[in-house]
């Protein structure tokens, strides 16, 4: 499997930039989703109002999460759902494996769920000797390719039609074709058999409604409807932050989520599941088990600045809007959640030690904040994490630390600042040609930032006559 690590983000990004096919696929997909999102948002006159409303609902939930979770659990239990609390990924996987083993299950169909990606559930299931198949088309492609999703809602966004055709030829034995309908039909035919044979269906959850104990899952392919209704047992894995207080709140989020994610006014399917069937003769699973996952969420909840990370509804809009993601895609982040929100969530989920590059993987342009349907101030969170990183023991950037100490010394004393500028002006003489600093040969004594800048850009040199010199000599009006 091509599992990249967040620790090697810089190398991962470099390889991604060298991948012409990947960049072409990303460019097409992110710009298409961006345009669709804009058009879909414009179809509602009160878009900004809805964003504020959604955020205040999320803030309310996060402030009283314990109460809303208890209410959600009590209402769903009264309709026959069973609940399991998992502190971390390992516990969640253990609970799920045991539930399946206890029922003598072996064959599992899964619908798309980032939460189970987070716990690496498939690895645990396979280790326990179970057969698991992803039934979302994108996830199915990724599973066949033995890869991980590179986007929150478009897992195979990095793949071209041709690559998928080649994959289906080698894995499913079909003749090569560039006909998308044929490729889709092949996946569909293979998956239909799997649905019919499955002992257990595993899904994620988009929203859990406290007022009624209802689970809401949205999708376009109908595979979630099948996953949650055909097998005898349905296991739903849900992050603890996914509760909404009232049924009426769904209205706000169903307007925002599809529009932000895929640019649709509504997804094709909305499955509302409230407990299990109340009548033996009715169709549907006999059992519904909900696994509530913490896995670092209560830690995020505890801090007033990072708390807003939990408002995320996993629409993926910030990925499509991010100039960095647009260039390097999701795998380079080396984490389950990529892009701007991934750079915020991942370090909080797995710790700063191995993820210290991610919060720096942003130009802080703010495009993510502009498109976020729940108004998460991602740049502010990135800045917060950068602060935590430089102040923590994980900061191994001794030279950078020293440089900023020196910089602060210079910048807080006008005279030192002035002398430094003059000194810099003299030192740079060796480098300036034709009024600019061009591409430099790698020389050991050169400051790395100067080398990095001039690798692809010329640099304006420090002027012999600075603005303050000119102010003194020409501009100052003497009275």
């Amino acid at each position, binding site marked *: 499997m091509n599992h990249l690590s967040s620790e090697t983000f810089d190398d991962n*990004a*470099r390889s991604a*930039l060298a991948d012409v096919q990947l960049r072409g696929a990303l460019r097409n997909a992110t710009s298409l989703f961006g345009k669709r999102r804009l058009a879909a948002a414009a179809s509602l006159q009160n878009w900004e109002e809805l964003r504020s409303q959604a955020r205040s609902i999320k803030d309310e939930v996060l402030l009283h999460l314990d109460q809303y979770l208890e209410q959600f659990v009590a209402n769903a239990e009264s309709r026959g759902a069973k609940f399991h609390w998992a502190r971390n990924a390992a516990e969640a996987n253990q609970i799920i494996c045991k539930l399946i083993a206890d029922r003598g299950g072996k064959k599992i169909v899964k619908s798309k769920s980032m939460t189970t990606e987070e716990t690496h559930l498939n690895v645990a299931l396979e280790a326990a000797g179970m057969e698991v198949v992803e039934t979302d088309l994108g996830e199915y492609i990724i599973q066949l390719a033995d890869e991980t999703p590179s986007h929150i809602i478009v897992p195979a966004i990095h793949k071209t039609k041709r690559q998928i055709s080649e994959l289906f030829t080698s894995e499913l034995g079909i003749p090569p074709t560039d006909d998308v309908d044929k490729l889709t039909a092949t996946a569909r035919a293979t998956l239909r058999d799997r649905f019919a044979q499955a002992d257990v269906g595993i899904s994620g959850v988009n929203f859990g409604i406290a007022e009624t104990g209802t689970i809401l899952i949205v999708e376009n392919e109908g595979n979630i409807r099948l996953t949650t209704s055909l097998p005898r047992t349905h296991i739903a894995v849900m992050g603890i932050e996914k509760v909404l207080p009232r049924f009426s709140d769904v209205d706000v989020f169903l307007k925002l989520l599809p529009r932000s994610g895929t640019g649709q006014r509504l997804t094709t399917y909305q499955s509302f599941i409230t407990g299990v069937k109340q009548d033996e003769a009715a169709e549907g699973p006999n059992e519904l088990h909900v696994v509530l996952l913490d896995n670092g969420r209560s830690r995020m909840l505890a801090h007033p600045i990072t708390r807003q990370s939990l408002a995320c509804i996993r629409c993926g809009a910030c990925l499509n809007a991010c*100039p*960095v993601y*647009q*260039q*390097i895609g999701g795998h380079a982040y080396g984490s389950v959640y990529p892009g701007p929100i991934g750079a915020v969530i991942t370090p909080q989920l797995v710790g700063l030690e191995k993820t210290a590059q991610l*919060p*720096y*993987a*942003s*130009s*802080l*342009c*703010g*495009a993510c*904040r*502009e498109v976020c349907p729940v108004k998460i101030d991602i740049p502010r969170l990135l*800045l917060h994490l*950068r*602060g*935590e*990183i*430089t*102040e923590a023991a994980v900061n191994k950037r001794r030279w*950078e*630390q020293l440089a*900023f100490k020196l*910089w*602060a010394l*210079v*910048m*807080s*004393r*006008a005279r030192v*600042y002035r002398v430094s*500028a003059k000194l*810099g002006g003299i030192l740079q003489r060796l480098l300036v040609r034709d009024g*600019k600093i*061009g591409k430099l040969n790698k020389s050991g004594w050169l400051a*790395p*930032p100067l080398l*990095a*800048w001039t690798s*692809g*850009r*010329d640099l*304006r*040199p*420090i*002027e012999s*006559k*600075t*603005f*303050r010199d*000119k*102010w*003194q000599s020409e*501009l100052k009006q003497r009275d």
Partner: protein
Amino acid sequence: MLVSLFVTCLVDQLWSSVGVSTVEVLRRVGCEVQFDERQTCCSQPAFNTGYRDEARKVGRHFIEVFESSKAEAIVTPSGSCAAMVHHLPELFSADERWEKRARAIADRTYELSSFLVRVLRCEDVGASWSGRVTWHDACHGLRDLNIRNEPRNLISKVKGIEFVEMDNADSCCGFGGTFSVKYPEISLAILDQKIEAIERAKVDAVISGDASCLMQIGGRLSRKGSAVKVMHIAELLASQA
């Protein structure tokens, strides 16, 4: 109106003509301009890289310098530095006294184009320049200070100018401060999208409100041997050619 100029460290040292132009434009529209020679930097490089103590040290110096001025407005030819000054209260949120002082400074700090249009209600500053230009929205001016129409209105009032919008004018140029040297390859990949859009617009010059973006864009254009010029909006508005 008495205005205190915050020229920014970048303009002071690397692009003094932007500072000179800012003074000229402000004087032309009737402002009296002060320049406190003790000023240095707004603290942004440290703030954005996560060095909060160092940022506070430089931030305090900034506040001390500018609160000694009686000017009604502090004006700067940079959306990014103006936005940083607006972030100063947040940087001092743990210290009520400094937070208050920071807020008082932030409340009277303006980026040049928004100062001209919003405060002085002036869109025609009597500039003239002949050629075809486009505008690059610098991110912090656009998204932190909501500056979108002000520069466009100012540019379109320049005599002899032809203004065209380029594709994705509001997308980042890839500079991002220390980002540009921490991840130079990503920064350049983002920049090249911007360069392509500029080339498609077939302009003589690309105008922006931040010397930092213009260094990034201009540095690449220069490396590629392009004939397209980069020009700060202050330089354009000062021009009477």
